[in-house]
């Protein structure tokens, strides 16, 4: 596999991509919308988009993913998709009866310029039901951008400041992470006795239990009332700048809810930051249970540090996750030498920050001179690895081609993971998530050491 990847790196000027490290906006919007209770995501475009997104999400979560489509035809593309969207809205409420529909656009409908807000206004919407929308042009940003846009639209459509004094509650925007991560973040907030509203919240939706019945709208998801009440919270914690800060800024603008933007809480330091932010906001003591977990994590890190020290790592995936993973491997004494995301990095000084600058600063603190790239692809990552080999590759399923070609231990983290199961139920965030990552990483490294060991070096105790 990948035999044609050359070691010699020539600048590619075409702007084309070979083996992407990102996908398009609408799938992110669809995933975010699944995090609203009773919501049917709706893809305004051709049938294929919706089908591809459902297929991809289904493979990752191994749960039914429900979403409808405007099923564009040639006529709709010429005369506009207004009629399709109106028919769709009518059909959806008649047939599937969700509490609300969350419409996202596609490259097609963005380009022909369908005016979604106006179409929604003139559509037949039953009493008590709601239709929201977000614009997700596939030719801008990535799936993370789509997630961010839909999350911001939740604020636009719902959040209101109705109380004169802000309530003693915090909004937590978890970012594009698995339901297992969302559950872990909620657990930490509960332990901190911080009343919170998490949105979007896909736990209980895409990790729903087996009951022998199919629930089109499972129990989970942030309720519309919670989304509205988010405008009354005294603080928003946005976890992950790329996926979450836009919605938080919008809450600040619209409802005067101040924002704390933190890293996705992967690893000890980022989790500490989350815990401290909650402690500061609610003047609570950190409960022993969390202190104990943190202590256990440090214990594990000290027990295993010699396995990790100086090992070179390549990390790719979504920017918020990659940032967290970079910090985590550094805390173990590893050297992240190649760090890449497919998502465009954002300009320095913009609200989402610059991926390149952020990572450079992070690795610079340990004196590491790493290859760093936003809007990159896996062809580039592979070439980097050919020039400077690594001991470990961390990323989503697509990394397996490189891992095989270069015979590198591989730890699957992020989205999508299509070839392993259970991952979406288990956290990588928080102290417990960090413990799990340490186990995964050391397992991968030691399995490799065992595999490669000569008989005389094959050890029982490692």
């Amino acid at each position, binding site marked *: 596999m990948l035999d044609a990847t050359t070691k010699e790196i020539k600048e590619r000027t075409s702007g*084309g991509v070979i083996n*992407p490290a990102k996908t398009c906006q609408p799938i992110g919007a669809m995933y975010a919308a699944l995090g609203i209770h009773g919501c049917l995501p709706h893809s305004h475009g051709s*049938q294929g988009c919706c089908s591809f997104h459902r297929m991809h999400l289904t493979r990752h979560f191994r749960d039914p993913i429900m979403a409808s489509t405007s*099923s564009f*035809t040639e006529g709709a593309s010429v005369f506009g998709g207004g009629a399709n969207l109106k028919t769709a809205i009518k059909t959806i409420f008649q047939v599937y009866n969700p509490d609300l529909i969350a419409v996202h656009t596609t490259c097609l409908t963005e380009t022909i310029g369908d005016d979604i807000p106006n179409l929604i206004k003139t559509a037949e919407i039953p009493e008590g039901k709601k239709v929201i929308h977000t614009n997700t042009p596939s*030719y801008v940003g990535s799936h993370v951008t789509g997630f961010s846009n839909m999350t911001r639209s939740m604020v636009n459509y719902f959040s209101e400041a109705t109380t004169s004094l802000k309530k003693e509650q915090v909004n937590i925007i978890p970012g594009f992470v698995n339901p297992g991560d969302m559950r872990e973040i909620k657990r930490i907030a509960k332990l901190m006795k911080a009343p919170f509203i998490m949105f979007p919240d896909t736990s209980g939706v895409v990790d729903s239990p*087996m009951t022998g019945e199919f629930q089109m709208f499972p129990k989970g998801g942030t309720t519309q009332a919670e989304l509205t009440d988010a405008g009354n919270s005294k603080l928003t914690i946005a976890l992950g700048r790329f996926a979450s800060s836009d919605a938080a800024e919008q809450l600040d603008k619209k409802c005067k809810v101040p924002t704390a933007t933190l890293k996705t809480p992967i690893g000890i330091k980022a989790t500490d930051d989350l815990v401290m932010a909650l402690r500061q906001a609610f003047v609570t003591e950190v409960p022993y249970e969390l202190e104990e977990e943190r202590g256990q994590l440090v214990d594990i890190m000290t027990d295993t540090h010699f396995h990790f020290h100086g090992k070179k790592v390549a990390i790719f995936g979504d920017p918020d996750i990659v940032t967290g993973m970079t910090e985590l491997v550094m805390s173990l004494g590893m050297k992240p030498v190649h760090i890449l995301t497919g998502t465009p990095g954002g300009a320095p000084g913009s609200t989402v920050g610059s991926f390149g600058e952020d990572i450079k600063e992070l690795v610079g603190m340990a004196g590491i001179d790493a290859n760093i790239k936003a809007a990159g692809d896996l062809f580039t990552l592979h070439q980097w690895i050919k020039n400077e080999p690594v001991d470990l590759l961390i990323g989503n399923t697509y990394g397996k081609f490189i891992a095989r070609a270069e015979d590198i231990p591989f730890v699957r983290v992020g989205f999508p993971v299509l070839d392993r199961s259970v991952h979406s139920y288990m956290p990588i965030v928080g102290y417990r998530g960090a413990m799990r990552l340490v186990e995964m990483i050391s397992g991968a490294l030691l399995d490799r050491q065992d595999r490669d060991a000569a008989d005389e070096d094959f050890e029982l105790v490692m």
Partner: protein
Amino acid sequence: MSQTLAIDERQDFITTKGRQKAHLKCDADSIAGCVSQRACVYCGARVVLNPITDAIHLVHGPIGCSAYTWDIRGSLTSGEDLFRNSFSTDLREQDVIFGGEKKLTAAIDQLAVKYHPKLIFVYSTCIVGVIGDDLEAVAKAASKKYGIEVVPVQSSGFIGNKSAGYKAACDALFRLIEPENRAKVGKTKSINYLGDFNLAGEAWIIKEYFRQMGVKVNVVLTGDSSYDQLKKVTQASLNIMQCAGSMNYFAGRMQETYGIPYMQVSFLGLEDTADSLRRVAAAVGDAETIRRTEELIARELEVTAPIIEGYKKKLAGKKAAVYVGGGFKAISLIKQFRELGIEVVMIGTQTGRKEEYDTINDLASEGTVILDDANPAELEKFMAVQQADLLVGGVKERPLAYKLGKAFIDHNHDRKHPLSGYVGAVNFAKEVYTTVCSPVWKYVRPGGVTHE
């Protein structure tokens, strides 16, 4: 959920065998707002062409279309693996405004120099259809510049459904196979095997049968095929076709243009496999071929029939629901399930054709529900009403079946072993047994009540 089926426009697409001669509506556009299991034109075109191993499959559009189809087909290769990469022009906002032709040209330049392919497919996506890039012109210029074939595939997503994509792929293929030397057309006593994509190596199994029968296989389309092979497609004297949904149009055009006839075959299940092998032997072989074919069938049956019989004892009386892409598979599956003592109680396809639905209707038992372009709510309803024990489907149907506590078989891209021929029939029986008789179903508590 069952009341949620109250969608009048869908009534014509669903029928029950028995009441009267049924006329099922099919091959129509989906209703806007439905949770359709169907894909788009690009998807249809890509799955047909993707197994061509030494081609660069360049997707001209934003990243998604390319990302979602990266190495999803599960078609095996005995040669190049260029087709397992994902190439995209990754169109950005300025390209949409100013046009993407320059970027496409640059991308082809780069790929031609980097990989030296003989063949590049350039797939058009929704947005390209709207902004109006001239794929033909770009492809023509690039072909000339590099002395390779650059073939545009007109697969903008909105011009129809997946079937339109099959047609777009067939049009591209048809351009490719144009022979340099017309004198050779139809002159080799050999067959092309159309509509096998070598998922899990299935085409290899069937080719081996033909080798033993003494039937020469010219080219398989498109499983494990290459540019050079495609160039000799027109030399065959007969086309046999398995997946008619995707290749019927191509076979028809070959007959029309090159006078090469075609016949429908299916290698799913013992009955259809034997029947297809015999018909091919009769069509292109002599007495010796027919003798060898009978020998092969007897030899294979001797091994596999007892195994199938063993599974039948464990599975008899179970009920199956089938929801697959095309009609041929649905037809074969009814027979194949009967070989296992299992009745098909619900059957549907995404893009089956009218003739196929007629055959399905003839084959199905009384009371079987037949449906076209079903949505999850319908699948759920009829699986429950018909008391199916397992569902045969694709990626999106799997978790749905599991949530209902039903067993499941992937008969699509995610299959992990061959389901064709005799070995495939055994694999299929084993897989049905594995999933239907797994201990995990015992732990399902209706309504999610776990402790009482």
